[in-house]
């Protein structure tokens, strides 16, 4: 098992290396070069030269690459051209928000997706099955931002059940030691703030979780349909086991293997998906910040955020691989 993990870790090295090269080249390929990119469109030749001097952009490319990598390893991505604060600081501010949102979206997608997929398969051909199949087709075809609009219009604007935007009520006087507002409320004993943050999370989380939900339903259903026809399920039936034992031990334990992979992949994608959700709900997280960075051409921010999100995506995939090894004994020995 340890060998398996180490081998997976080693596979990370070339990917992270490639990633850093890609982003290094990307920033230098920007129109006008990185100095222009940092200064914005109204930069004078003089100030460009100064910036190039300051950031060492006139040094040979390998020196620049080395500096870039060693800074990145220390999580130093320079300053935001827009807010003028270190990119790392902006990350610390925005990541907890999006992590909270992503967790909520995932809880929603898994909590509904797995039971729905399971019952759809067990009631193969029923109205529930048809509903979940068409729902999962629709789920991937509806753009997240459009769904976010619909949710916002129906449940916030019309019905007034949920707030239209933000992470909390600005009148709420709350402390935020972790930046995860729901957790903060619990930690500081301010349950009202927790509830407020939770209510703000609902619509963005549903919108963000819609695609993972559709995919989890589909994979769970297909996987359960496969497994219930396996010989070992027939063996379990032949033993006269209770239905719930068969479901838990023989059907689900096998059927959920591919679902775990898919959940991992989808979890990794939530951070980029958040760009489209957070903008609609003015949810002050990574996505909203990246959106602003795009419109203000804040390339230092984009570079740092893309690198970190991609690295997180890779690491999440690694964790999925490893956890797969934990639940499937066949993978472990290989």
């Amino acid at each position: 098992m340890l060998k398996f993990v180490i081998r997976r870790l080693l596979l990370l090295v070339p990917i992270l290396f490639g990633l850093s090269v890609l982003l290094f080249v990307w920033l230098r390929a920007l129109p006008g070069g990185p100095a222009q990119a940092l200064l914005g469109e109204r930069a004078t030749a003089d100030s460009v030269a100064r910036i190039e001097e300051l950031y060492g952009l006139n040094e040979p490319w390998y020196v620049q690459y080395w500096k870039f990598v060693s800074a990145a390893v220390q999580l130093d991505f320079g300053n935001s051209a827009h807010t003028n604060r270190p990119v790392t600081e902006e990350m610390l501010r925005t990541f907890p928000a999006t992590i909270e949102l992503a967790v909520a979206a995932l809880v929603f997608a898994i909590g509904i997706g797995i039971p729905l997929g399971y019952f759809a398969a067990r009631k193969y051909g029923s109205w529930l099955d048809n509903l979940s199949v068409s729902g999962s087709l629709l789920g991937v075809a509806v753009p997240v931002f459009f769904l976010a609009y619909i949710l916002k219009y129906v449940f916030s604007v019309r019905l007034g059940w949920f707030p239209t935007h933000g992470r909390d009520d600005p009148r709420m006087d709350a402390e935020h030691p972790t930046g995860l507002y729901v957790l903060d409320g619990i930690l500081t004993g301010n349950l009202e703030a927790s509830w407020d943050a939770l209510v703000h999370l609902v619509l963005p989380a549903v919108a963000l979780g819609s695609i993972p939900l559709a995919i989890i339903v589909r994979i769970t259903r297909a996987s359960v349909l496969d497994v219930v026809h396996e010989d070992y399920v027939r063996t379990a039936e032949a033993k006269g086991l209770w239905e719930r034992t068969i479901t838990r031990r023989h059907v689900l334990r096998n059927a959920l293997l591919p679902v775990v992979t898919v959940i991992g992949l989808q979890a990794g994608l939530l951070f980029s998906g958040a760009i489209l959700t957070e903008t609609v709900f003015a949810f002050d997280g990574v996505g909203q910040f990246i959106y602003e960075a795009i419109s203000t051409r804040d390339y230092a921010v984009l570079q740092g955020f893309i690198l970190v999100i991609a690295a997180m995506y890779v690491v999440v995939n690694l964790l999925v691989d490893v956890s797969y090894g934990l639940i499937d004994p066949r993978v472990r020995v290989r």
Partner: protein
Amino acid sequence: MSLSEIEAATESEQVEQAAGNLRREAWRRLRRDPVAIVGFCLIAFFVLVALLAPLLAPYAPDAQPGRGMITPTNIPGPSAQHWFGLDASGRDELSRVIHGARQSLLVGVVSMLLGMIGGLTLGVLAGAFGGTVDSVVMRIVDVMLSIPGLLMAIAIAALLGASLTSVMIAIAIVNVPVFARLLRGQMLAQRGSDYVLAARSLGVRRRSIVFGHILPNSISPVIVQATLTLATAIIEAAALSFLGLGSADPRVPEWGRMLADTQRYLASAPHLALFPGLAIVVAALGFTMLGERLREAIDPKYRR
């Protein structure tokens, strides 16, 4: 030709014949599948609207027939005159949605084709040569897949500046590794198959095995992927445009930007969000439905 060679040759023919039968069977299955038919109809509707946009649209996309009717507090909704209502600049929403189909179809098809060509080239290189070429190509593919697609599209579109071309290129690049991995996997699977071994034992040259046998037999999953990619390309294009990375010209009607522009008016003029949104859903759903059923028809593994 020795007896065993003749047997090998007939066997490889039989396998390919079987593949042909499978394709006919898939086609027969598809023609009876209501989901596939609905998907096909949605696609046909979408493509027709896109092609005939100038004939169908009552107004030019940038005309402002209702300029006088717009006030900050009132954007007229659907009426007999303007079926989909007016937008905030007094333009006819229906005409813009219809013309938007053109942009959407264009971006979808071009970016899918570019991505497919790029991916197939890499995949054939990796699958046909194997060894070092294969590892290098696959490492590149791994790195590309390590960046979430939307994020990569954003990075590329930001790099190339806001234009329709950069949206197409960005989405194409995102799709390259998908096609590359798919085709390589197909080729590896087929390289070990009996009929390829048979052809090789007969001394058929590598190039003609690759182009004469392996590629044609790998085409079905590629077609499926292409159909599904059209759906995601349309959605991704809308997303980029929604984020302000679409065409630099605000007069060009793009569904994604139309949705972004309407954000401020969501409470007062929800029709402005509804129609472009539904348009994206119709187009994407058509390709998704057909693509999924195509996959099920071709590959029995996905049936049920």
